[in-house]
């Protein structure tokens, strides 16, 4: 069964500095990987996905994520953080090789706090 781990409950970064939110995964085959962001009292918003191809994928709001198969990681990154990036971030994985229902499994979330 697939699983996702987000090892940090919270990440603190100063505005203007680069940020990284970590995610590792476990699937039996090649994964489909996703990042979502949740602002207070809102639903989750899709940020980006990795399916195949280039290991660096770009998404909304200047975010990008790097897929590393050998380390089974899919870390979310941004070169220069904004205060408005402060939110809860979720990594998710789907195993497209599952013959049954291909559910999306979410990590427990990482709270990003960007200080002015």
């Amino acid at each position, binding site marked *: 069964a697939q699983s996702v781990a987000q090892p940090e409950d919270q990440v603190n970064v100063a505005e203007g500095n680069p940020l990284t939110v970590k995610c590792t995964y476990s699937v039996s085959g090649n994964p489909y990987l*996703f990042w979502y962001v949740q602002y207070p009292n809102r639903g989750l918003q*899709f940020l980006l996905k990795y399916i195949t191809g280039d290991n660096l994928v770009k998404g909304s709001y200047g975010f990008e994520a790097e897929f590393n198969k050998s380390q089974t990681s899919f870390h979310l990154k941004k070169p220069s953080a904004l205060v408005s990036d402060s939110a809860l971030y979720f990594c998710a994985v789907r195993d497209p090789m599952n013959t049954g229902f291909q559910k999306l499994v*979410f990590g427990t979330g990482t709270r990003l706090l960007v200080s002015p």
Partner: protein
Amino acid sequence: DAGITQSPRHKVTETGTPVTLRCHQTENHRYMYWYRQDPGHGLRLIHYSYGVKDTDKGEVSDGYSVSRSKTEDFLLTLESATSSQTSVYFCAIRSGTDTGELFFGEGSRLTVL
């Protein structure tokens, strides 16, 4: 905007009462999902639907039932609410692409006293 509306957005109820949450979509998507979000657990799948009258259980389905009589509506029912069902409930639809990313509603916050 993914065209998903959840109602009610907030509800307070008492233990033992029935509760129904509604998810309405305007996108005509086949797959719909109900998740609950709790601190330390992320999002956990309660039930999902893959078409009208076609539903199945997720990982935390005990105490919940669902119905889908029309493509656009997916109802989540708590037959007899318990305090452990206090949570934020999210409905989601699956995109029509092969990669199947989900798009979420704004959530329904349920408090069971």
